[in-house]
């Protein structure tokens, strides 16, 4: 599904990712953990196609294709979804209109027919119920005046609507209370299937109680310094990142 080899990325001459390697197979859930500033968010943004990052080396192949040469929206059409750490507010852009544009853009690109308004509404309402998002928020401007938890639920709702092949969740758990965390995790678990892969970026082991990862990676200083199964997450929870940084150094 996703193969990252020796990826090096800078922002304004500062090297952030320094030779990152990662292989994710279809149907797998990978957790990426690591201290602040280790490059977790940079990785997710580069995969989704955010401008302003300079790839100075390495390659990323997604389903055999050169991901880094694809336009941002084309990546979305190809099934990549990034659940943002800080979803931006879009004043005046209606949430429903936005989701319909988004879904239909992806469907068109995949050669599928657009969803008509009633079918779309039925689907979005049903999915909103699942992630426990207040239906009133569908009629508001995207993310505007949403609480932190509502923003994250709105992200999971979009993910459920778009049914991506590779979902990247960038600290989706931050700022969530335990109930919201369960709902968000539930949304992710429902998406799990043999042909979908998920990358969960998180600081805390807590989320991984609900989303059980196949692999856990520790990102320190722009490199993956250790990989393991879910036991590794528990170990990190107990011992912090310090010992790994020492081992890595």
């Amino acid at each position: 599904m996703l193969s990252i080899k020796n990826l090096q990325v800078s922002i304004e001459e500062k090297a952030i990712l320094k030779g990152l390697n990662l292989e994710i197979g279809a149907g797998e859930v990978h957790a990426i953990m690591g201290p602040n500033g280790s490059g977790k968010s940079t990785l997710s943004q580069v995969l989704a196609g955010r401008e302003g990052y300079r790839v100075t080396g390495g390659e990323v192949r997604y389903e055999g294709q050169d991901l880094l040469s694809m336009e941002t929206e084309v990546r979305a059409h190809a099934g990549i979804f990034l659940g943002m750490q800080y979803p931006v507010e879009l004043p005046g852009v209606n949430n429903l209109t936005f989701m319909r544009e988004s879904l239909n853009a992806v469907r068109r690109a995949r050669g599928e027919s657009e969803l008509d308004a009633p079918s779309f509404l039925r689907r979005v309402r049903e999915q909103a119920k699942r992630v426990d998002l207040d239906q009133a928020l569908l009629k508001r401007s995207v993310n505007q005046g949403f609480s932190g938890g509502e923003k994250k639920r709105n992200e999971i709702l979009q993910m459920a609507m778009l049914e991506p092949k590779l979902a990247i969740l960038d600290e989706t758990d931050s700022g969530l209370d335990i109930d919201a965390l369960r709902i968000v995790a539930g949304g992710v678990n429902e998406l799990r299937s043999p042909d979908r892969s998920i990358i969960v970026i998180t600081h805390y082991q807590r989320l991984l109680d609900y989303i059980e990862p196949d692999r856990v990676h520790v990102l320190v200083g722009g490199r993956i310094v250790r990989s393991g199964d879910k036991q590794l997450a528990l170990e990190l929870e107990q011992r912090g990142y310090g010992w790994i940084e020492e081992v890595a150094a």
Partner: protein
Amino acid sequence: MISAAQQNEWFLHHLSQSAGDLPGRGIEWLENIREQAGQSLAQLPVLNRKQETWRYTSIDALLQQRFITAGADIGAFKNLDVTRWLLPGLDAYRLVFVNGRCLPTLANVADLPDGVVLDSLRAALTTDPEQLCTWFEQHQGRTDNLFTALNSALINDGALLHIGKNVVLEKPIEILYLNLGEEQSLLVQPRNLLVLEAGASATLVERHIGGDSCSGFHNHLTEIHLAKDASLDHYRLQDEGDQTHHLCTLFLSQGERSHYRGSHFSFGGAWARTDFHALLRQTGAECEVNGLYTVGDQQLSDFHLRVHHAAPGCTSRERFKGILYGKGRAVFDGHIIVDQDAQGSDAQLSNDNLMLSRSAEVDTKPQLEIYADDVKCSHGTTVGEIDPAQIFYLRSRGIDKEKALSMLSLGFAADISNGIKPEALREYVARQLTEKLSIQADSKEKDQSNV
């Protein structure tokens, strides 16, 4: 630069070449208005960029052109099929002007309730000049600059709306100005008088439409008088071709507790200027003016508001937004004056501009001039760009960059455009905006491919 002498000559030329075919010859009060205005053309100060209201606006391009008045050949349009300009679903009483002249055959004024007069100025001059004189003299707008004087000196046709005491019009009134002078550069000078008596209420939609090849000059003058407790919802859409010069001077005078809600949209024209003068004459008047302009290459949008709180306890809200692309230019000049006696005034003025290109330019100038001490007044302006994080967000959801820009720009304008009450009009504005913004995306694409 056009010299003062050339400017004078331009105004006098248009005065003399247009004076031939005027209605109501021999009606004394009308001839007096024309004559005084005509004389003032030689006396009024020439317009130049040292004057505050013309500081950012050059009229040289306008003054380099000569315009001719639409003549008697207007009859050729009397059976014009106007269907394609109508808004589907907008059920309205209607006057239709073609090249500045009202064509009664195209109007829809049947079934107007008692107490409502909606007619052309020309017709009213024939049917009841005395009554017209009363209304006109009570509410005669100031002719204090060369353009308003030129309009007054050549009063020819326009819309007359009079709504009697306590008459509430449910159905909107639409005034359609079609400018079809494809071959010639026409001087079109409608003169409108709108009077709502005490307790009257109406919705008025004015739309200015013209083809891309119309290079005329439209010099409108509209007077609106709202008596005590009268209420007017006023929508004005200027969407003429990119060669057109459009100037609209509005004088609004508000009586006690009257309510004016205006939404002014300016999408087209080489130069589209609005001089809006609101006089909150009596206690408790409320004046709400919203505006939205879009400008691209070779376009200047030019809004000048003067809101004058002359009585205590009046409220005014002015909210204007602009979307600029290409080499578009905009001027926003909002001026609130609060007289010493106007205690308890509440005024807010804002102007926000969205710059979609680095070559676009806006001059925005809000001013408060306050002589009372117990007031609540504020003003603010912003000039900004679309946040790249917003574009990324939309693109990461599969929406291409052009569509993302268009959605965000529409979002920026939404609080103005969503305030339009008649649904047909709201949808029309949304369509026009979408079209303008997709054109700008196209031209941007071309720019990039040329690089």
